[in-house]
C-alpha cells in the first residue's frame, strides 16, 4: 500500500503544480565577496541543493531545469523526480485500484447473481414493445459501446498485458498485438468521443436528477421491497450510468487526447497527471460498465427482447 501513499502525494503535488504558473528558479546561495562582487566558482549551484529544494514541496518546482538552445523547450528539464512517483502509481497503485475496482465489481455481481438470479418481469411480457429509443439513438449507443469495449480491452492491455498476456503470447506477438491495440485505442477514441458527445446532447434533458430519483434510490431501485419504484424515462440507476458515461467518458477522452498529442498545451507534469486521471477514471469506468452490462444482460430479464420487432 506504500505505493498508494506515494501516489496520493504525487497527485497532490501534481495538482498543486498545475495551479502554479511559472518556474521557481532555484536560488543558489551566492557567495559574495566583501565588495559585493561574486565568485562564480564558489557560488556554483550544486545538485544536492536543488534536489533538496524539490523535496521541500511544490514550491521548489517539479524538476531541475534550465535553458537549452534547441527549440524543444521540454528538453530543458534536467532531472524530474516526479517520474519516479508516476512510476510508483503506474506499477503499484494502479494495479491495486484496478484489482479492487474491476475484480471487486465482478465479485459483487457474481454474488448478486447467485443470490437473486435474473430479475424477472413482474407480470411477464405484455406482448407489446414500446419504442423507447429510435434507430439513431440505438446506433449511437452501440457505436459508443463497441468502441468502449475495444478501448477498455486495449487500455487494460497497456497496463496489465505485460503481466497477463505477454507470458502467453511471447514478446513479438504481444508487441504486435499491443501495437495494433495502440492504433485501435487511438483511432477508436474519436468515434467514442463523438458517441459520448451525442449521448450528452440526446439524453441530457431526461437525465437531470429530480425528486423521483430520491424515492427510487430509497427503495434501492426495487431491490428493497417488491414493488416497482417510480421513474420517468430514465430511472435513477440509469441516470447514474448516464452520468458516469458522460463525465467519465469526457474525462478519459480529454486526458487521452493530452496523451495522444504530446506537449500540445501541456508539459511532462501535465501529461503524468493526465495519465493518472485517465487510468484511474478508466478503471472505475470499466467497473461501472461491467455492472451496466450485467444489468442489461443476464441481470435483468427482457434485455434480449427489448428491441422492437422488426418493422
Amino acid at each position: 500500500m506504500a505505493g498508494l501513499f506515494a501516489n496520493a502525494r504525487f497527485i497532490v503535488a501534481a495538482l498543486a503544480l498545475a495551479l502554479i504558473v511559472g518556474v521557481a528558479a532555484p536560488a543558489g546561495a551566492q557567495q559574495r565577496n566583501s565588495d559585493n562582487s561574486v565568485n562564480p566558482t564558489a557560488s556554483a549551484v550544486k545538485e544536492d541543493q536543488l534536489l533538496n529544494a524539490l523535496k521541500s514541496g511544490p514550491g521548489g518546482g517539479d524538476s531541475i531545469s534550465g535553458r537549452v538552445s534547441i527549440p524543444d523547450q521540454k528538453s530543458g528539464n534536467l532531472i524530474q523526480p516526479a517520474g519516479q512517483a508516476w512510476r510508483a502509481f503506474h506499477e503499484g497503485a494502479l494495479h491495486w485500484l484496478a484489482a479492487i475496482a474491476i475484480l471487486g465489481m465482478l465479485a459483487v455481481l457474481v454474488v448478486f447473481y447467485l443470490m437473486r438470479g435474473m430479475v424477472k418481469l413482474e407480470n411477464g411480457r405484455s406482448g407489446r414493445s414500446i419504442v423507447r429509443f429510435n434507430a439513431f439513438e440505438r446506433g449511437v449507443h452501440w457505436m459508443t459501446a463497441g468502441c468502449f469495449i475495444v478501448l477498455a480491452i486495449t487500455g487494460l492491455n497497456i497496463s496489465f498485458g505485460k503481466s497477463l498476456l505477454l507470458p502467453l503470447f511471447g514478446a513479438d506477438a504481444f508487441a504486435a498485438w499491443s501495437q495494433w491495440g495502440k492504433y485501435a485505442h487511438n483511432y477508436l477514441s474519436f468515434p467514442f468521443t463523438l458517441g459520448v458527445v451525442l449521448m450528452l446532447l440526446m439524453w441530457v434533458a431526461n437525465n437531470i436528477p429530480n425528486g423521483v430519483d430520491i424515492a427510487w434510490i430509497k427503495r434501492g431501485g426495487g431491490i428493497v421491497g417488491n414493488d416497482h419504484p417510480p421513474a420517468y424515462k430514465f430511472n435513477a440507476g440509469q441516470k447514474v450510468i448516464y452520468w458516469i458515461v458522460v463525465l467519465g467518458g469526457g474525462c478519459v477522452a480529454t486526458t487521452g487526447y493530452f496523451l495522444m498529442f504530446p506537449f500540445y498545451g501541456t508539459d511532462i507534469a501535465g501529461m503524468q497527471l493526465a495519465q493518472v486521471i485517465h487510468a484511474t477514471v478508466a478503471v472505475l469506468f470499466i467497473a461501472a460498465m461491467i455492472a451496466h452490462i450485467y444489468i442489461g444482460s443476464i441481470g435483468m430479464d427482457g434485455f434480449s427482447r427489448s428491441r422492437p420487432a422488426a418493422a
Partner: protein
Amino acid sequence: MARMKFLCDADRCIECNACVTACKNEHEVPWGINRRRVVTINDGKPGERSVSMACMHCTDAPCAAVCPVNCFYTTADAVVLHSKDLCIGCGYCFYACPFGAPQYPKVGNFGSRGKMDKCTFCAGGPEADHSKEEYEKYGSNRLAEGKLPLCAEMCSTKSLLAGDGDIIAQIYKERVVRRGYGSGAWGWKTAYKESIAT
C-alpha cells in the same frame, strides 16, 4: 563485468555541445531527435552550471519498469537498451524517465509518437553487433569495438566521462579533491541511487 555509467562534471562543462554533435555524427541521428543535450541551470547568473544529459542507463530503470511491452533490456555492462521492434511508441518511458531521455520521431501531423529512440551508450541494440539492421535502428556499436561513447570521448574539456562506474567515480573524486569544489555527480543519486563521497 563493468558497470557502465555516465558522469558529467559540471564544473568543467562549458555547454560546447560537442557531445551533442558527436552523437549526431556517429549515429546519423536525424534533425529533431536529441539523444544528448546540454542544459544550463541558472543561466547568466553567478552559479551557472551546464550539464550534459542523456540516458543515464539507470539501475532499476524506470523506463523498463513502466514499458507496457517490456521492450527494454539491460546488457551485461549494465547498459539499458531497447528493442525498436517491440516498442509501440506509447510514451510511458518518457513519463517515467527522470532525465527526459526518450525521444520520439514525430509521425503524422499531430506529433504522434513513432518508435522511441534514445542514447544506447554507443552499444547498438538487440540485433547482431555491427549488423546493418543494428546500425539503421540504433546507430553504431562502439562498445563492441572496444571503444567508449563518442560524446564522452570527444568532450572538449573532459567533463563528460563514460565508462566503468567505479573508475569514473574515482576520477571525479580525485578532481574534486584536487580543485577543492564540486557541484555533484549530476543524476547519480537518481539514476544509480548513489552519490560520490568526496
